[in-house]
């Protein structure tokens, strides 16, 4: 029987070589979770990355409640911009880079992709800086933590386990609740908080202006539009289900900004009140003292670590996808290195460079954070203009073009964003 079976193995049908159910089984199981948490919420959580936590902490610590009023307009702008991308993804079935390439040709696409690549490299460096800062609180040297983190991120994708780990990251985002609780425990003057939320308190001071722009810039970054649209396409959301997709985007944006608000409130109620400036990650952690007491540093480190690693996993991969799709190179983590050399090359280069820069002695971390903001700021106006041009194309969007009112809000928002980012670039340079 056994030998016969062996001889028969030559006749084994070709299906044998197919392992479709390997992936099938666990993807199916994941669907339960992933179906609820959509691309909008994931994008929002990646948005609160190392740069986000740092900026919001600094805003609260230096300016107290006086920057809270910016958050409502930022939410509106974020929703308007992200919704247009999600809509384009659903209607055209194509990513933003693909659409720009197909409608506006090679040259424009090439320069936008180069800018996106540089901006996201700087962003990736900032994420690895976040990892280093978080683990230094636990006394882990960056010469140990950074190579390990870079390897881990690379492994996630190469072994196709990213989807599983994504849920771990998302669950770990519950950490943001720590700011919520801390914010409450610090007993801020809620009346004042609410007033400051709605009453603009504009100050014509250089540092105040820079901080305002930083808050806006870190909340609305160009990678988010590319990432969200690709994720919506990847998920294959149908027009009939677009309503849910829109809710997902709106909920995601609101969650992102609520988290930002509580980080600011927690920092304002503690650090600002006690006139403690933030110089290191340890200082920023003290905003969590009302909740965690002496463990606040550990809690903060954990949250910063998760946020940084999450973003560091998403950014290089989505950048490599975007750039390769825009320029027509083969993509896909299931491809062999030989089949998609540009894709793997870009992906690996982003991680290697992103982590290597951190390891250089006397590396100007702060300068890189600023540089990433500048590059984001230079890129954003172009991205916004292309989004608006594309979303209003009747031949692409059919009846899903912007309505006149929506266009008014969208162009207004974009004009404001462009003005702000130009100011930021000017201020930083």
């Amino acid at each position: 029987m056994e030998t016969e079976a062996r001889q028969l193995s030559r006749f084994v049908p070709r299906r044998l070589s197919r392992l479709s159910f390997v992936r099938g089984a666990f993807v199916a199981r994941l669907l339960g979770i992933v179906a609820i948490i959509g691309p909008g919420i994931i994008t929002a959580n990646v948005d609160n990355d190392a740069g986000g936590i740092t900026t919001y902490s600094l805003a609260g610590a230096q300016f107290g409640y006086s920057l809270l009023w910016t958050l409502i307009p930022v939410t509106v702008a974020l929703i308007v911009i992200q919704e247009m991308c999600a809509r384009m993804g659903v209607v055209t079935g194509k990513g933003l880079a693909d659409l720009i390439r197909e409608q506006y040709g090679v040259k424009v696409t090439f320069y936008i992709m180069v800018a996106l690549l540089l901006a996201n490299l700087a962003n990736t460096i900032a994420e690895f800086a976040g990892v280093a800062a978080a683990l230094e609180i636990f006394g882990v040297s960056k010469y140990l933590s950074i190579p390990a983190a870079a390897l881990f991120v690379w492994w996630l994708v190469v072994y196709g386990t990213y989807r599983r780990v994504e849920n771990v990251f998302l669950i770990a985002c519950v950490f943001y609740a720590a700011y919520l609780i801390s914010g409450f425990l610090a007993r801020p003057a809620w009346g004042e908080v609410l007033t400051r939320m709605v009453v603009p308190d504009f100050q014509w001071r250089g540092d105040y202006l820079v901080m305002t722009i930083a808050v806006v810039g870190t909340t609305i970054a160009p990678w988010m539009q590319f990432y969200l649209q690709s994720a919506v396409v990847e998920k294959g959301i149908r027009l009939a289900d677009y309503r849910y997709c829109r809710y997902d985007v709106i909920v995601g944006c609101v969650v992102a900004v609520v988290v930002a608000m509580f980080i600011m409130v927690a920092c304002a109620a503690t650090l600002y009140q006690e006139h403690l400036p933030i110089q290191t990650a340890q200082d920023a952690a003290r905003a969590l003292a009302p909740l965690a007491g002496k463990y606040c540093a550990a809690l903060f480190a954990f949250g910063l670590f998760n946020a940084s690693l999450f973003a560091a996993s998403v950014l290089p991969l989505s950048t490599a996808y975007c750039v390769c799709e825009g320029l027509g190179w083969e993509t896909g983590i299931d491809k062999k290195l030989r089949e998609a050399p540009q894709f793997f090359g870009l992906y690996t280069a982003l991680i290697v460079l992103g982590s290597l820069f951190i390891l250089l002695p006397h590396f100007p971390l702060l300068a890189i954070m600023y540089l990433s903001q500048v590059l984001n700021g230079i890129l954003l106006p172009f991205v916004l203009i292309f989004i608006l041009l594309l979303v209003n194309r009747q031949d692409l969007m059919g009846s899903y073009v912007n309505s006149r009112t929506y266009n008014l809000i969208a162009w207004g928002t974009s004009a404001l964003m462009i003005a702000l980012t130009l100011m930021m670039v000017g201020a930083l340079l």
Partner: protein
Amino acid sequence: MAGNGDERFIAQAVHGFVFFSTLLNKPVFDAAGVFVGRLSDLAVSLAAMFPPVVDFVVQRGRWEPFPLTGRWSDVADFEGEAIHLGVDIRALTPAKPYTSGEILVREVLLDKQIVDMSGAKVVRVNDLHFLKLGQSDLRLVHVDVGTRGLVRRMGWEQAIDGLLRRVAPRARYLGADRLIRWQYVQPLSLDASVQSIRLSVLQRQLGELHPADIAEILTDLDTHDRARMFRSLDPETAADALAEVEDPRIQTQLLETVSQDHAADILEEMPPDEAADLLSELPPETTTALLHKMEVEEAQDVRELLTYPPDTAGGMMTTELVALPADLTVGEAFARLREVAPEVENIYYVFVIDGTGRLVGVLTLRSLILAQPETRLRDIAIENPARVHHTDSHDSVAEIVEKYDLLALPVVDDHERLIGMITVDDVLSHIASQAWKRKLGS
């Protein structure tokens, strides 16, 4: 190119190749030398095997939105610094939309995704390659999907080539044009009337591709193109391809893009266990509706399979198998095998059952071939074969298949009646996913 001998040179001179990027945006002058505008597009006729250029389109200027169009045969010279027409500017007409078997190459092909049928890949077009057959006979022969095409479009070809020749004259890049012959190009953004012309070509070529390749093409396409291509497949090809698509999300998405009647046809063509797996991913009301539309017999098989929980042997098995009565002779068995073989996925094992459907033995195709035609099956069957109960776990199935080196394992019910079999490919999938989990766990 130089130094390849005179013959080659003459051949090149008569039949030169022209890249679209070198024509695009070239200034256009009419017969009187009046500047008309810049070349913005070419129309080709799809009727011929290598589509000839029939029309050209000229953009008048940045602020003049209405382009002009003229016959390509009116072009006197296009190889110099500018394109010179043999006619007056008044011979040109306002550009029109193309529908009847002609396409605008820039609108439909340039920068767009196409399917490369020779490599079974979805690729993006960087440039178009024309062959000059005569004075005004320009044929589309290749699309360029390589990095050289990209560089040429950026306008850096000469600079980069010059630099590379000096620095690394043997660089692979210098000879690495990636051109795809037009016959193997399947454009995606065509409207319906033009699409139908290419569709016959597409279907013939798709028939030659392995279903796994079609599945990969489908996976690589964006949602709309994916749906369009899937709809154009005949039910049998669609079923094979669908079974090969790895991502269940894409599988269900594809099935939802076709009409329910078409979907039912496709499901009938699939092995029942695959069909059941796919249906179990769909919303219950869709599953019911599709089962209702399927042929009664096929639907019955699938419905039965759907009743078994997915994590049991029953959920893993297929009902398509060869089961023959024990008192049949080998000769009769062959006759029956010939009848059922086209329908059944795996005929290498023949199960022997008694009058009540109980499993009494198993035969391999090999032992059947070696036996005398008049021998009865009960005499040569291996009695008491390894089997599993339909409630057994996947792990125990894998264990038994591995232990006895089986290609297929029979599944029985409480009364030892044969109800299905599990083939080794499904077991392998299970083992691989276990291995995956172990790797994650560590």
